[in-house]
């Protein structure tokens, strides 16, 4: 416990955040958060002005996923607060650590339908990990300390701190607690060693074992452990889409993501496997197709930090609750003790490698020069392996999943759970703030980019040179694909009619805008973007009729995958 000091709630907020190591806040000021904004004049925290509170939240989310420390966003009360709801829901769906601080009307005005009052505590309840509303200034430091602890421990998530204006303004004797207790919160469980032992036996006794690595593997940064298990037991590795890049996709044992738009070889091998080591995944419907078809065939070993995930969507034969990095380390230790190290290629692994080679060779791609696969492979070829990718949501996102191989684990981020269009660009800004030393590229579609493109002002004015890579079919492409596939080509509400011109749009913000209509132009554009010190938008017109394939239609199983004809 530090010594007491008298100060306002707003100052205590900033001091408490400095103690948490916060270096920047993404946000927008307004009437109810002016006292905390005034403190930026007197502290060492940088303010990065967003152009919409939703984007501020996505920036904080992007920062949090890359740095694995909570990103912070500020918004005022009322509409400022409601605007961050999508950002909170996105972070919650993808277990991203985040702190959102909202202004609120003064305590005495709460419940009076005051100007710019919204019950953000009530509204945000299902989409936050926890929420605080300090009612006196003296409660602020503890709310911040607990908020950060909750956001970043166990299964991470967003925490809201809603501070009434008078609580920001009032002075109190402040203590900044080092130690605190949250009685009902137990973020970590020690993994059960017996269960780890059982998991090993089950994998050893299976003919066709496979690893399914989910987003939890990335959150826990269990990359080395995952690779060690895969190599020691010679296990092929598929991932969920959120787990994409948990394992180097250039590794001989890698098959890439499974799911609705999974790699053909990954979906095929997943449907042939007889035992799965599922690491940090909630078995989302988009990953496994129909739940019943999945669990009927398979012995499932499920590792997760969240005990509520065990048995939620799939019934596991062996469950290991705990941080997956710790669980995997226990398994590695047990394998060492038992001197287990597979060196011979099993018939299963041989079959997996043949299948992979077949699909690498035989998956039919768009025949044109500017097909999605060619564009994304060109991007991969020119980007350094440590580059960070974010994506928007739609066809481009799934093409990125199919054709952009992640080489360095933990460098690919997407709104996978909530599927929030407009996430990728502001998230790339947050990512670049976390890692200014590496190129950050938002693989975008025109529909998604249009939703948060005004973050270009932030990227340019705050000197955050990210690259927006638009696969532009001037269509809400994924919706159009479903209309072509399931609605007899009745195209409703999807045509963007070549509006706007993204090169001119970029230039109007002071960013670099480049249109690339051939592979040669694309090559030059990517190189120009990589050497630019200002944000760059690369606009790449593509065929609006190109579909994302393979495709597992909703409500079907992975075995029913539709392939390009």
């Amino acid at each position: 416990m530090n010594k007491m000091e008298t100060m306002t709630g707003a100052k205590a907020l900033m001091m408490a955040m400095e103690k948490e190591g916060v270096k920047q806040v993404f946000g927008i000021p307004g009437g109810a958060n002016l006292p905390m904004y005034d403190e930026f004049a007197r502290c060492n925290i940088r303010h990065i002005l967003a152009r919409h509170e939703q984007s501020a939240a996505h920036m904080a989310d992007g920062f949090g996923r890359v740095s694995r420390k909570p990103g912070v966003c500020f918004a005022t009360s009322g509409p400022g607060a409601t605007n961050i709801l999508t950002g909170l829901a996105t972070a919650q769906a993808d277990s991203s650590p985040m702190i959102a601080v909202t202004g609120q009307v003064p305590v005495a005005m709460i419940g009076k339908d005051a100007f710019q009052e919204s019950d953000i505590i009530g509204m945000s309840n299902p989409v936050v990990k926890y929420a605080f509303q300090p009612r006196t200034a003296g409660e602020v430091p503890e709310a911040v300390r607990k908020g950060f602890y909750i956001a970043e421990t166990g299964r991470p998530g967003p925490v809201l701190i809603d501070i009434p204006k008078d609580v920001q303004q009032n002075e109190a004797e402040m203590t900044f607690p080092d130690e605190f207790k949250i009685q009902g919160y137990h973020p970590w469980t020690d993994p059960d060693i017996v269960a780890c032992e059982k998991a090993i036996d089950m994998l050893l006794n299976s003919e066709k074992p496979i690893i399914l690595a989910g987003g939890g593997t990335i959150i826990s940064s269990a990359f080395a452990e995952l690779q060690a298990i895969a190599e020691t037991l010679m296990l092929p590795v598929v991932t969920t889409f959120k787990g994409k890049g948990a394992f180097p996709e250039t590794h001989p044992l890698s098959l890439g993501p499974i799911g609705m738009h999974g790699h053909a070889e990954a979906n095929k091998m997943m449907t042939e496997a007889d035992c799965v080591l599922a690491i940090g995944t909630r078995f989302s419907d988009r990953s496994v197709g129909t739940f019943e078809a999945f669990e009927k065939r398979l012995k499932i070993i499920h590792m997760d930090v969240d005990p509520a995930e065990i048995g939620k969507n799939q019934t596991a034969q062996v469950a290991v609750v705990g941080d997956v990095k710790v669980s995997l380390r226990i398994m590695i230790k047990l394998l060492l003790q038992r001197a287990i190290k597979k060196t011979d290629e099993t018939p299963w692994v041989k079959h997996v490698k043949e299948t992979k080679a077949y699909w690498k060779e035989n998956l039919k791609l768009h025949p044109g020069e500017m097909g999605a696969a060619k564009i994304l492979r060109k991007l991969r070829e020119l980007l350094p392996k440590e580059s960070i990718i974010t994506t928007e949501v739609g066809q481009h996102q799934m093409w990125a999943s199919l054709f952009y191989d992640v080489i360095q684990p933990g460098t690919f981020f997407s709104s996978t759970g909530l599927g929030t269009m407009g996430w990728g660009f502001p998230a790339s800004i947050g990512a670049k703030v976390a890692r200014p030393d590496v190129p950050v590229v938002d693989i975008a579609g025109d529909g998604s980019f249009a939703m948060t493109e005004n973050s270009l002002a932030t990227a340019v004015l705050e000197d955050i040179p990210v690259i927006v890579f638009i696969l532009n079919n001037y269509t809400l492409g994924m919706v159009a694909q479903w209309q072509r596939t399931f609605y007899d080509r009745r195209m409703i509400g999807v045509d963007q009619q070549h509006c706007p011109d993204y090169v001119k749009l970029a230039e109007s913000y002071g960013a670099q805008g480049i249109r690339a209509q051939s592979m040669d132009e694309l090559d030059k554009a990517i190189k120009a973007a990589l050497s630019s010190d200002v944000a760059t938008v690369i606009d790449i017109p593509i065929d609006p009729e190109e579909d994302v394939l393979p495709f597992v239609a909703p409500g079907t199983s992975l075995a029913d995958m539709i392939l390009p004809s």
Partner: protein
Amino acid sequence: MWAILSIVVENKPGILFKITHLFRSRNFNIDSISVGVTENPAYSRMTITTFGDEKQVAQIVKQLDKMIDTIEVKHLDEHKTVYRELSLFKIKISNASDSMEINKLANAYGGKIHDVKKESLMVELTATPDQIKAFEELIQPFGILDVARTGVAALQRSGS
């Protein structure tokens, strides 16, 4: 399956909202709910009864347990639990013999009579939900004017 859940929570404003919201957002129904402070004024005990198969009940218990405001969550075995609900029935009296009949039924169920008027009387009955249901069926013919029920309160028997 009918399940009794006993949940100890921090005694703070807004927790009841969060618990009921969790049931709604996870697609569960609350059959009954009762809330009261425990021997330690820092905590409240919520007793919630719900329906679901074994897997569903296990899932809601885990989701409740995950909540930061819950201190303890138990799925009680009804055979090792004392559980009761208080109910009040306002019953119509059409002729003189009704009053006697209702009195007899109430006595048989351990109920108490209140508010005896010419045209109605009230029965207070503390029992298990099954017993209350049985009593309700028996008094149905007289005409039930109003019912109020508290929801189940439950405690595990010692040693179980």
